[in-house]
């Protein structure tokens, strides 16, 4: 995916929020959407089931306006976390520029986090990306839950963050950590504009 186009003066970045079901991916996007000034508010597309689970994906186009002469757009996506939507997750990952892995901090969800991370790596590899180098940020969500129910940041980092990428504590439902995470992945993605592989 081309992220910078000097011909049309456009920069487009696709960021995908990945993670197990109910980890808070949609909530991250909803918080970003809620903070947008009215003039920048496009449509956030959410396809959810009757039980409010993401069925297909969420899509939030972020039009940042003209920056340094370039029309700049970020496209934020989530994937459905439930295991049986594997094909959809692969589809959403096509042309991705950066990934936010939203982990559920609850101790009882550790196995789901690991499974989802493995699924991410497998799907990235299938789509032709190197899972070891693609821009990635970890968000350990639900830090607002009682201490007895959640794993420590250190434990989560040791188990999930073997690449040593930036990680953030989050409570997306109240907005905590949401923009820090988005800012971090955006910076990583933009820093890759200098890589020759980004053309095309």
């Amino acid at each position, binding site marked *: 995916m081309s992220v910078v186009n*000097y011909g049309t003066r456009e920069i487009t970045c696709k960021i995908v929020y990945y993670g197990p079901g109910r980890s808070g991916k949609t909530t991250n996007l909803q918080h970003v959407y809620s903070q947008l000034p009215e003039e920048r508010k496009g449509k956030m597309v959410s396809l959810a089931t009757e039980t409010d689970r993401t069925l297909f994906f969420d899509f939030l186009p972020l039009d940042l306006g003209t920056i340094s002469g370039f029309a*700049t757009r970020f496209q934020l996506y989530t994937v459905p976390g439930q295991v049986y939507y594997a094909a959809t997750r692969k589809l959403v990952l096509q042309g991705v520029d950066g990934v936010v892995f939203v982990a559920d901090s609850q101790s009882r969800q550790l196995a789901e986090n690991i499974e989802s991370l493995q699924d991410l790596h497998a799907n990235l590899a299938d789509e032709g990306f190197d899972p070891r180098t693609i821009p990635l940020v970890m968000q350990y969500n639900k830090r607002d839950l009682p201490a007895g129910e959640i794993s420590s940041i250190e434990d989560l980092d040791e188990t999930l963050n073997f690449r040593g990428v930036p990680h953030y504590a989050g409570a997306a439902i109240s907005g905590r950590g949401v923009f820090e995470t988005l800012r971090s992945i955006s910076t990583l993605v933009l820093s890759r504009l*200098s890589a020759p592989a980004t053309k095309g």
Partner: protein
Amino acid sequence: MAREAEEEEEGGEFADFLADVSKEIAQRVESLDPTPKAVAAAKLKTPVAPEERRKTPAVADAGVIVEWPNIADRLIEEIR
């Protein structure tokens, strides 16, 4: 009142994000810009074979060129 302050603070989250992203983009596009004078100069210095000159249409797409911000963009497109 408290709600107003909260909203103001919330709006600030996006503004801060936009400021950071803008700074990053400004740095990147400047360092990556393939339109520096050096590129154009290098192209001008490259000798063009007479037969190549003959192959090049004079101004086949003159109407489009007028809409481009500057001639450097055209050079880049042609290099591609």
